[in-house]
């Protein structure tokens, strides 16, 4: 369904800009009776499905809400009760649980960006050809990641639907928007996180235009 998200990495491998175009993530809400067929486990202070895929709830999905009350980590937002305890106790059933794709925290995004930066460098070294570029396309069945590295070492990364076309054009346009509204801004320091309103607005416009044109070519 178009462009999912956009990342910009500086020449040191640090994430300087990130934008999620599709904020709607697939969620599944279902009422369960005791005992729970899913196996849940605690990963990084989040409750994640480990086993028992069914009805749209996949392995790796996080528990987002219990009986309509959203969770913060493993605790309920309202009264701080431990969700694992609530699920373990049979008297709370039937219970309504909402699962969805994990939302990445900023720290996780930064780690993923620097990991990609390293893989990119490894990619160019592993190549049997001399003077090979780094990773340009990374394709899975769910998404296609495309990367454009500028001559100054900045990497523009777009994660989009595999059927989306015109992503190379989008990457070049992103570079233009960056050179206009970030580099010409006197209040922006090089290699720092980009916090410019005009940059955000124009980048979103460019992404929307590209998404509309790209889907038409499918």
């Amino acid at each position, binding site marked *: 369904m178009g462009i999912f998200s956009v990342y910009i990495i500086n020449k040191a491998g640090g994430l300087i800009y990130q934008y999620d175009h599709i904020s709607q993530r697939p969620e599944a809400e279902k009422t369960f009776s005791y005992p729970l067929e899913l196996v849940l486990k605690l990963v990084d202070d989040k409750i994640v499905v480990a086993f028992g895929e069914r009805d749209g709830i996949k392995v790796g999905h996080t528990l987002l809400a219990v009986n309509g009350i959203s969770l913060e980590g493993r605790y309920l937002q309202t009264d701080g009760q431990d969700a694992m305890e609530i699920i373990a106790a049979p008297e709370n059933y039937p219970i309504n649980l909402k699962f969805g794709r994990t939302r990445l925290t900023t720290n996780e995004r930064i780690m993923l960006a620097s990991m990609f930066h390293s893989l990119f460098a490894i990619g160019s070294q592993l190549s049997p050809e001399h003077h090979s570029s780094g990773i340009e396309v990374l394709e899975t069945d769910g998404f296609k990641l495309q990367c454009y590295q500028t001559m100054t070492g900045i990497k523009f990364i777009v994660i989009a639907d595999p059927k989306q076309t015109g992503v190379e054009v989008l990457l070049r346009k992103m570079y233009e928007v960056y050179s*206009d*509204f970030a580099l*010409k801004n*006197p209040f922006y320091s090089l290699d720092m996180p980009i916090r410019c309103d*005009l*940059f955000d607005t124009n980048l979103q416009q460019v992404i929307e235009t590209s998404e509309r044109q790209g889907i038409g070519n499918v």
Partner: protein
Amino acid sequence: MIKLNHIIFYFYYLFQVNVATFALLFSEIVQYCQNRVYSVSELQTKLSDMGRHVGNHYLDLLFVREKGYRRETKLINMLLFIKNNFWKTLFGREADRLEHSNDDERTYYIIETEHLVNRYISVPKDKGKLNCAAFTAGIIEAVLNGSNFPCKVTAHWHKGTTFMIEFDESVITRDKMVEGK
């Protein structure tokens, strides 16, 4: 720094300057001023001073090239000249609107929805009401002062960018006499 200003006022219509070049140069000017001041209002004053410097040097060039050595004496003609001719030579197009204040007969407004010097600049929240068009305000002030229309020009965030021109009382009185009012 003075050499930098000389480069800026080569905006005459025969030799078009790339907007990217100007934007990068102006960005450096703003950073240069920022490193030498301690507050936002000082920054705006410093940008205005730079603009005044440019305006003073540009005034003669402007009148030789655009006006054919003629001098404006009527206030309204001078203001229209600024809005149309002066704006066209500096920014490639005319200013959007010229307005007279309802409350104060000494005050005029030149309004532009998207000002060229502000096109690529996103002012962060901690800089408050900073408007880098203070630079242009300085140019306008110097041109008007040099043409014997003493005034003060400031830039504000209103309907885009508004330049508020406050003339001295003497200008209004003199203008009324010239008109024979």
